[in-house]
């Protein structure tokens, strides 16, 4: 772990704590986190010394994707194999960015350089890197081809290339194309212009803060009768960090209040779905927070078009009507209805549709929807037993967060090594994920859950309550745990 960084982080946290009349020890005690746990994200209850047993199994392992999932997996493999032969294929030098920090950058709490990390600083010793994009997969012959034409063979393949952000499906933003979170997104920034933003890329988070400040200033000089309109969307696809579209609403709300401009602003959320969260307890909590903060919301609206010149967002607005009686099913049918709704905006934040990279969907490795179909517990491909997948691209329910990856990568490594040793795959991912839902500057609701679709709190505290201690954890502890704990294969 980078001692200089930790010292700086602790110093900032102590200052924050002392302004609330609290010591670090008291704060950790309050949250049920052990002194060591703050760095690795474990509670005192479940923290345990980990004993890593090395395997002598040998195989050529290729990992496609050098983000959090790919690098954490590579690091873990180097810990668990006595003679690892691992290659990462990743075209972006900045692929190791700390994406959970993008919301904080977008609200001016962090600078972009606090989340930019170089891939090569985290690639474990002995792991080879091919700086290229894998574009053609031939799993029948255990090989793939890169964009530059290099043919790479493997014994085991791990797919960890994340998702693409599909802005081009929105009419009016066709020129934006598809983007990844990291890397150069100048084309996307140009296409979005100066009133539309998205925290889903590193560059976009900085731009969001610039645009947010501009419209907060406009709101300051507006009036309650002619409010500045802030519009936020949530798409019709699974997305990475499903809480992010709401976090940016809360942070915009916080900055407006701080500027004394809240009453001159109208914040409206247009999600495609019919609920705020898949877990009823968190849904109810969020609805309560929206009411408290006077944030409006309209379910079942999908952004399909933007008119940048006239600042109009067009949504596919959906509702259902009672249909005819079905005598066989002994129930009334439901008839879906659609209409286009044009909504004027001043500030528009887009959470784009997330899709699997095209090259996966078009290969034998992808499902009909493009994702990599894996056994959701073992993370092994359902057809190719020497292929595993992890993170955003894996077809795993509720799995598109860093918190999910943290639980997945050790399972994947255990199972891959078990397969190499021709033994039973016993590692099981149980669907755990976590969303530190920032509800204000200084408070976070730590939404933890798994496939039971019930809250699964790690701390002995009501998980639906917004807490300052979880803000401290989000702002100070999660980044070192991720960048130095997970990326070294230990946290």
């Amino acid at each position, binding site marked *: 772990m980078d001692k200089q960084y930790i010292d700086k982080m602790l110093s900032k946290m102590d200052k924050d704590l002392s302004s609330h009349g609290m010591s670090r020890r008291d704060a950790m005690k309050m949250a049920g986190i052990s002194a060591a746990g703050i760095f690795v994200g474990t509670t005192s209850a479940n923290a345990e010394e980990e004993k890593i047993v090395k395997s002598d199994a040998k195989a050529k392992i290729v990992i496609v994707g050098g983000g959090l999932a790919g690098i954490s997996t590579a690091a873990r493999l180097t810990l668990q194999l006595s003679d690892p032969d691992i290659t990462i294929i990743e075209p972006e030098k900045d692929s190791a960015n700390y994406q959970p920090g993008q919301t904080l950058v977008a609200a001016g709490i962090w600078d972009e350089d606090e989340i930019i990390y170089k891939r090569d600083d985290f690639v474990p010793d002995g792991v080879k890197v091919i700086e290229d994009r894998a574009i053609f997969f031939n799993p029948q012959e255990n090989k793939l081809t890169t964009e530059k034409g290099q043919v790479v063979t493997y014994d085991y393949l791990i797919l960890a290339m994340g998702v693409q952000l599909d802005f081009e499906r929105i009419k009016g933003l066709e020129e934006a194309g598809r983007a990844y979170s990291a890397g150069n997104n100048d084309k996307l920034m140009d296409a979005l212009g100066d009133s539309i933003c998205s925290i889903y890329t590193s560059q976009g988070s900085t731009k969001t803060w610039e645009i947010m400040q501009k419209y907060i200033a406009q709101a300051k000089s507006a009036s309650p009768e002619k409010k500045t309109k802030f519009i936020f969307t949530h798409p019709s696809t699974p*997305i990475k960090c499903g809480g992010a579209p709401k976090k940016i609403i809360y942070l915009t709300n916080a900055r407006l209040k701080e500027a004394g401009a809240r009453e001159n602003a109208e914040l409206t959320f247009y999600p*495609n779905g019919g609920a705020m969260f898949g877990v009823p307890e968190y849904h109810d909590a969020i609805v309560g927070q929206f009411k408290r903060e006077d944030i409006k919301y309209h379910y079942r609206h999908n952004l399909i078009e933007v008119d940048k010149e006239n600042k109009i967002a067009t949504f596919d607005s959906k509702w259902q009507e009672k249909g005819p009686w079905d005598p*066989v099913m002994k*129930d009334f*049918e439901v008839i879906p209805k659609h209409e286009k709704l044009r909504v004027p905006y001043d500030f528009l934040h887009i959470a784009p549709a997330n899709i699997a990279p095209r090259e996966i969907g078009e290969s034998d490795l992808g499902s009909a929807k493009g994702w990599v179909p894996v056994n959701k517990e073992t993370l092994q491909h359902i057809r190719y037993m020497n292929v595993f997948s992890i993170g955003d691209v894996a077809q795993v329910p509720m799995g598109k967060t860093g918190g999910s990856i943290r639980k997945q990568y050790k399972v994947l490594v255990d199972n891959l090594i078990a397969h190499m040793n021709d033994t039973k795959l016993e590692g099981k991912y149980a669907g755990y994920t976590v969303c530190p839902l920032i509800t204000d500057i200084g408070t976070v609701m730590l939404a933890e859950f798994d496939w039971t679709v019930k809250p699964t709190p790690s701390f002995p505290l009501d998980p639906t309550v917004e807490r300052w201690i979880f803000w401290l954890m989000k702002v100070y502890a999660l980044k070192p745990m991720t960048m130095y704990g997970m990326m070294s294969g230990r946290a």
Partner: protein
Amino acid sequence: MQLQFELVSYDTVLDKFNLDETMYQMEISDEDAQTYEILKSSDMNLYNWLKESAFFLNYICDEVYPNSKSKKIAISDINGITYRRFYFFKVTSSDAHYAYFKKFFTIFEESDWQDREEIGDEILAHLSVKRQELIFDIECTPLV
């Protein structure tokens, strides 16, 4: 104990189920009644038990479809427990059926953000496989 049940027949050419409108009734032994009581809280376990039980298949051959050869059928209802949704689900079916299948096929949280039609298509894709597990062939020996 009496078992009341209804059946559907499967048309392989049209890939379509047809409801047999008759309600059948049969007496089952005390031992089978005990098994029924244990399994009735799990609709799939109950279904699979009957599908594999000689007494049930014999009753169908003797009383329901005598002389049938290679008839493909499935159970649509047993004592008020319905399986009709497995054969007749449509994208326009009511929310109760969506809720059942989202749980049954473990279609999770993301579905809350997706369009109903898309989830409906996903359920239908799962059902195309599941239906084949539910269908069973009736090979009845012709009565002499």
